[in-house]
């Protein structure tokens, strides 16, 4: 599991995963806007989201329900979702 479990650390890690999976250029985890709409701006579709969710599930040892995908619209919302899941586990 990634070391940093505070919300900023999770946001940074989610951004890192998205950049890696989508092979995004000219952006780093530090410059990625966590409020950017992933569908409306980045063009992510449900298959991209499923791929990213698989990596996140593996890294954070959580389950991301497919029905929850529509909620995961930004890096910030994904990070908050992960934070809630981690808190529920404890």
């Amino acid at each position, binding site marked *: 599991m990634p070391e940093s479990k505070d919300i900023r650390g999770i946001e940074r890690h989610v951004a890192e995963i998205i950049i890696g999976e989508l092979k995004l250029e000219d952006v780093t985890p530090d410059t990625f806007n966590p409020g*950017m709409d992933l*569908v409306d701006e980045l*063009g992510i*579709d449900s*298959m*991209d989201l499923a791929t990213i969710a698989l990596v996140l599930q593996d890294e954070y040892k959580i389950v991301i329900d497919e029905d929850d995908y529509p909620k995961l619209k930004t890096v910030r919302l994904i990070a908050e979702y992960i934070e809630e899941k981690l808190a529920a586990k404890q």
Partner: protein
Amino acid sequence: MKTVSTLLDAEWRERYRRISSLNIRSSIYDLTCRCNLRCKGCFFFSSGEHHVQEEMDIRKWEAFIDREKARGVNLAILIGGEPTLCMDRLEAFYRRIPTYCATNGLIKVPRDRFPDMMVGISLWGGGEDEKILRGRDTFAVSSKNYEGDPYTYYLYTVTPKQVGKTEPVIRRIADCGLKVHLQLLSNDEGVDGFSWRPEELSDLRFEMDEMLDRYPRTVISSKYYHEVITTGMMQGRRFGWRECPSVTESLDTRQPPVRRLIHFYRWGADLQTVHRCCTSATRDCSTCKDGAAHMSWIMVNKRDHMTSTKDLQNWIEVYEMFAKLYRLIPW
């Protein structure tokens, strides 16, 4: 980093947002194994896909459709056989899920039972080609049945013999107040003279472009779709088994995974058999000209089109074309 905002102006961004919210989950259903035509080149019969025990109990159909809805299907595409031979099954779908009926148009769908169901009428060319391939000129009947119907369009499967001759067909369709979408024949039964040669495909591409320019209120299409379906190429990749998005999910063992239609299935009329893809499992994918498969191929590869303004606009136009064909957005 290229984003929608950096690539598109306000008007195109609005068009993008309108379609990106649709979240289409389609599947295809053989409503029956029977047909009132036997067309040469029809994949359903040439591949033996009609050899299943058709489910006759309407309650089992209704329960099946409820299960399909529960797994997220929000667009049911009904093929066959001829779906209009089974109005009760047609109605069972229509009452539960947004439904599209692919028909030869010989039997009219009663609009009092199906007021806004989308109907796509298959057409295989002008009268002579129709007689050779289908045994009769179906347009003479279907155009009377559906004249001026706002929820109907012709799905015109262009054959190599139609190159240079599509305009009279399109004009007749316009004259009876209907729309048309063009796709290409895949000659599954090897009918002599109906297989494509490269120069015919090239000529047809420009003819389709011209028809779209001349009949913009009648032809539902896009020039990028014409390019992709006639060349078989998209963003430097060639269409085929390694690329096709319209493969039944439970049969899709391709590795690495291919970008595909989420939860797509094609079900047989026994409600148990699943077919490999949206068309014939006996078809060589490298020669497949299926229009729906090619437009879906473009649609599932959105991010590959976020390379330039023109590429993303092309992607949007194809998605809009698909959405118009199912009236998910207005014509």
